[in-house]
């Protein structure tokens, strides 16, 4: 990028040039702008059609009774009122979703932090361990969810085989009240890899001289981690928490596949711990055919996510450490 002084220099040079050259420069500028707009045109069109238009149309539909009857008409805030006061599943599923995403994200970050701290040591075969922990993140969600569905199976699942050996009796993993926890365990299993990678990269960016200084001062490994490494990797933690929460609140595939043996149970009985918000949304749209209502649910979820993200960003000043020098260094 061009800093202020160089622009001034250029203008000074240009003012001494012949008018023809200056015009050519000007034409070049226009050409450059035209090229710029042509090159970003696909993204601009995509943004307008697939984001602005779709969000706006969703908002519009959310004020109609679309799907509920033949003639579509505006019903004001009825859909929203229905969600907040008349739909017994609304608050329950929203609560389940929030519980699921907050607990699984925090747990993933904690476990990811522990694993990253271990793998940041001088271990033989580090790369192998890292790959193993990261593998669940890479494997398709469908494959992963199916494997857990079989693992959790009450009768034929290996997990219960193990639990029974230990003498805890059989656990109904896929029923309330365990269901939510089964879902969270699975989310942590597949989420640790991602947070571990980001945290590990953060840890490796911690300057050696800081650690050395702490060692010289006689600071033990735990305090060293707590007071030197941890504050410096808070940006990585923050990133993990934000993306994890946004993803977690929109979780659908895992919840749907984890019910029973995972096969086509979209319309089966409701298990509270598994009935996340996105399932309510899908059920309203595709089973009950209340499309207007489903659009209202979409917008409510969107706003909830925006609010959660906003609050997180507001709190970030208090606990995320931004090294202004490091930031300048990475700026192009």
């Amino acid at each position, binding site marked *: 990028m061009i800093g202020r002084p160089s622009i001034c220099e250029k203008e000074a040079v240009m003012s001494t040039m012949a008018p023809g050259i200056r015009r050519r420069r000007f034409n070049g500028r226009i050409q450059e702008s035209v090229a710029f*707009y042509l*090159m970003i045109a696909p993204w601009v069109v995509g943004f307008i059609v697939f*984001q602005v238009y779709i969000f706006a149309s969703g908002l519009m539909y959310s004020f109609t009774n679309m799907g509920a009857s033949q003639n579509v008409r505006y019903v004001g805030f009825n859909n929203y009122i229905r969600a907040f006061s008349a739909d017994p599943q609304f608050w329950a599923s929203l609560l389940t979703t929030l519980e699921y995403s907050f607990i699984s994200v925090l747990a993933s970050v904690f476990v990811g932090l522990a694993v990253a701290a271990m793998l940041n040591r001088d271990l033989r075969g580090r790369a192998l361990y890292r790959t193993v922990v990261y593998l669940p993140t890479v494997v398709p*969600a469908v494959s992963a969810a199916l494997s857990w569905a079989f693992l959790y199976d009450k009768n034929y699942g290996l997990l219960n085989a193990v639990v029974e050996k230990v003498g805890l009796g059989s656990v109904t993993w896929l029923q309330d009240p365990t269901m939510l926890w089964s879902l969270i365990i699975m989310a942590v299993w597949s989420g640790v890899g991602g947070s571990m990678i980001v945290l590990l990269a953060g840890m490796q960016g911690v300057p050696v001289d800081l650690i050395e200084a702490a060692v010289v001062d006689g600071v033990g490994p735990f305090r060293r981690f707590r007071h030197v490494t941890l504050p410096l990797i808070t940006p*990585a933690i923050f990133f993990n928490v934000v993306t994890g929460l*946004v993803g977690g609140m929109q979780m*659908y595939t895992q919840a749907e596949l984890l019910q029973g043996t995972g096969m086509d149970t979209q319309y089966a009985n409701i298990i509270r711990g598994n009935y996340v918000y996105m399932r309510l949304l899908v059920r309203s749209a*595709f089973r009950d055919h209340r499309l207007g209502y489903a659009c209202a649910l979409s917008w409510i979820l969107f706003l909830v996510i925006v609010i959660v993200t906003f609050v997180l960003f507001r709190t970030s000043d208090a606990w995320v450490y931004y090294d202004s020098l490091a930031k300048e260094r990475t700026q192009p």
Partner: protein
Amino acid sequence: MRRLPATPSGSLHVRVNPWSKSALYAITWIICLVFLFPFLSMFSTALKSDIEATSLPVHLIPVQWHWENFANVMKNAPLFGRWILNSFILSIFPTVGIVLASSMAGFAFARLRAPFKKQLFGIVLATLMIPTTSMFVPIYLFWRNVHAIGTYWPLILPSFFGDAFNVFLFRQFFASMPKELEEAAIVEGCGRFRVWWSIFMPNALAVIATSAIWHFNWRWNEFMMPRFLLNAMQSYPVPVGLLYAFKTEIGTSRVNMVSAGALIFAIPTIVVFMLGQKYLVQGFVTSGIKG
């Protein structure tokens, strides 16, 4: 793009008690085992016979190893091959689209000057966080209005407009490239599109790989969109097809077949991961730390 140092800089060669060292290894191995356990269990289910898969007691190591199950997936679900093909179509085309459109926009944001560039890039950054899945129903209605439900358009076309994450990724990379790269070409009258295509793109293979691997994996995983935007067995990708296949009369599924199918389905992502591990991690790190 920041490189990861080859050795862990956060760790020092402090003398470690050999007991704590072996304890560390033991813990690491236990963690690895826990992470591998679901795969092992699935692999074992995939190898079991129909009867053994649903009989007690449950064994981790199958009594009889039915390797032919993997081949039988094809036989029992004649459309499985078709679904694999569909999955590839629905992953490769969007990946090509996303790389083309995003790299072009990323190049423009990084190397060209124009009015309102800053504001437009602000929009890119703002839309990075937009939760699109939450708008699933409006998206569905949009494609229904243009009569595209059941076709591949909704699953392929949007990628050809690029997305904020990849525009950002390419922009960051292109911005770090030296200025000399394009100066000579522009002086000689080379157009901006040529500069992007024949000078910057060949030098951006690392970031192209990052972007492509990410997008491919994401599309390969996609379950919700194809499930509701497609409506015929022969047009489903594997995740949706698996859901409907292998049902018995009483409504339960043949778990060994489903496991085998799901494992086969996981192979391409694991291969892509092994080949492009470096780029995947790089993408994660760049997007995370600079974002």
